[in-house]
């Protein structure tokens, strides 16, 4: 296993489209690193550049201590798992697994040993003599993972491997991948557009947007302190409420009267937006202590929680996450109270975190 260093990566296609503007990543040895972003953000291109399937226009990629810019994919000693599995349709599971090893020219006994080992690890026993066509989506993906394993590569690259599976299977496979990664201590770069996958799998997450890295951090850091307005709006379901505020009388004051505790070190003259998670707000009976008057616009009953959309006289309605026991009808007059600590604050002109 080895770490991966990506420095000043830039990828521009011959037709002029820029897929990756500038990406710098430092992925540690044995780390499960997730690249998260909307489609077209450059995450897959970055991954394919690491794999050697795309040649970057400029920038360096190192795997371990080796500069791999000019190495073909085969010589980079990495394995990749694809969204569409890419199992060879004419080969049985057993041969699909053995294939990369035979390509390397390993002795027969070693091939057998490694295939058995990977099959045991991914519990493929009964599937070994079937062809991909005879396997379900989840089974195919397990075979694809096993095929990546047999190589004992220096790093694993995963390109949205769970996107084509149904929700239940996806949750199972997520657990399986996380467990596997921990057991092998493998360096793994995982690309997804699903934030739940990113949050639950990643040791660290890189959020990409328009070919640039917006933020790199642990799932908690990314959730608690999104580095930019883009991250704030991207992470969380429902996402953070972004409330325009002004600094006045030692507080952040929004239109409609909502007041928030200001973080230290704010400059006065910029145009600010406070990011408040839906769980840091509370819908109360009208006139409750420290609450501002508000009106329930709509309520989503999700069973284990209720998401209220509340009009508090500000420019945008805010979303509030409440336990299912607290019930208000739509159009009810209520109070809105901030219960969280200091909110994160962004400068509207730079779209970046100021405090």
């Amino acid at each position: 296993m080895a770490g991966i260093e990506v420095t000043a990566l830039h990828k521009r296609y011959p037709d002029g489209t820029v897929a990756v503007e500038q990406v710098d990543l430092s992925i540690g040895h044995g780390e499960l690193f997730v690249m998260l972003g909307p489609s077209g953000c450059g995450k897959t291109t970055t991954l394919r550049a690491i794999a050697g399937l795309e040649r970057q226009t400029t920038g360096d990629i190192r795997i371990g201590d080796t500069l791999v810019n000019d190495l073909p994919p085969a010589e980079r000693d990495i394995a990749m798992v694809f969204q569409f599995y890419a199992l060879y349709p004419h080969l049985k599971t057993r041969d699909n697994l053995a294939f990369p090893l035979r390509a390397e020219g390993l002795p027969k006994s070693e091939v057998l040993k490694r295939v058995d080992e990977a099959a045991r690890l991914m519990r493929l026993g009964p599937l070994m003599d079937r062809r991909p066509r005879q396997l379900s989506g989840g089974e195919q993906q397990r075979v694809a993972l096993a095929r990546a394993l047999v190589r004992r590569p220096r790093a694993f690259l995963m390109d949205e491997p769970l996107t084509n599976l149904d929700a239940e299977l996806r949750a199972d496979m997520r657990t399986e991948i996380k467990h596997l990664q921990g057991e092998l201590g493998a360096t793994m770069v995982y690309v997804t557009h699903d934030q739940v996958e990113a949050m639950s799998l990643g040791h660290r997450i890189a959020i990409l947007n328009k070919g640039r890295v917006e933020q790199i951090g642990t799932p908690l850091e990314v959730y608690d302190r999104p580095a930019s307005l883009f991250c704030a709006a991207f992470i969380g379901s429902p996402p953070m409420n972004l409330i325009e505020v002004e600094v006045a009388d030692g507080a952040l004051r929004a239109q409609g009267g909502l007041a928030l505790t200001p973080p230290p070190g704010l400059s006065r003259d910029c145009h600010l937006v406070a990011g408040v998670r839906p769980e840091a707000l509370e819908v109360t009976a009208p006139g409750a202590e420290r609450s501002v008057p508000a009106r329930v616009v709509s309520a989503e009953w999700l069973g284990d929680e209720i998401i209220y959309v509340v009009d508090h006289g500000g420019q945008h309605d805010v979303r509030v996450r409440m336990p299912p026991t607290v019930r208000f009808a739509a159009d009810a007059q209520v109070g809105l109270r901030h219960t969280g600590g200091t909110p994160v604050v962004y400068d509207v002109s730079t779209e970046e975190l100021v405090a």
Partner: protein
Amino acid sequence: MAVSVDEAVSTGPARDRTPPVRRRSGRGRSVLEVALLTVLAVVMLFPVLWMIETSIKENRDVYAVPAEFIGFTVTMEHFKDVFVGPDGGRSALSVAFLNSVLVAGASTVLATLLGVPAAWAYSRFAVKAKKDQLFFILSTRFMPPVVVVIPIFLMYRQVGLIDSKLGLILIYAAYNLPFTIWMMKGFVDEVPAEYEDAAMLDGYTRLQAFRRYTLPLLVPGIAATAVFALIFSWNEFVFAIFLTSSDSVRTAPPAIAGLIGGTTTDWGLVAAASVVFALPVLVFAYLVRKHLIAGVTLGAVRR
């Protein structure tokens, strides 16, 4: 196990019991269908039938008035004349057939060898102005061949390709290439690029990955495309009649056309030559009919 046995037992009688109700209306419809289709088939196939009949009639029966549909003397003389010349040696027509086989085969192979890799490249790589290039390639097929036959004649005379089989092979390959590229690109698009990516990570070069993984999956597509190209080259008449003149180079279509005219026309020979000419393509198309349908319906089903 028990369940499947039960099913096997119960479906047998059920199949006998229920369908007759449905079949009655179905039978009425199918009688009408068969009748209509038969009429249509007779009308459509009459020229073909007449050609086959003429090819096995003696010459006086060919000109008989009223025409004889049945009861004429069957002769194979005309077919013998197709292959054997008046001097007992090889006939000019048989040489023309051999030329046709050679020209159609070689031009199809050439167009496929060039077109398949080109289609793969257009499908897989980001090429500058890809759409414009593909449109340009297709646009060469917009006009009928007869429009360009005179410039090509002049060029061929300059470079010495006039009245040569190589000249015909080249022009047919050039004419089939756009079609091959477009049709094959559709087939390549259907094969996920990930197979090649995976093979490259497994230690193959890009070309090896193409040859070992994509190419085998493309075989049905290549067969369909090649058949279309072959049929075009086999049937082509305009270039052949303008660009060739000697009997040793001429392909079958102009050679058969050359039988008509002069003082008398041996219609029996024309018909026999036409039958011989039509057979290979018919047999071949029948053999690869599944692939042909795959080619025709390409892209009709979205995944």
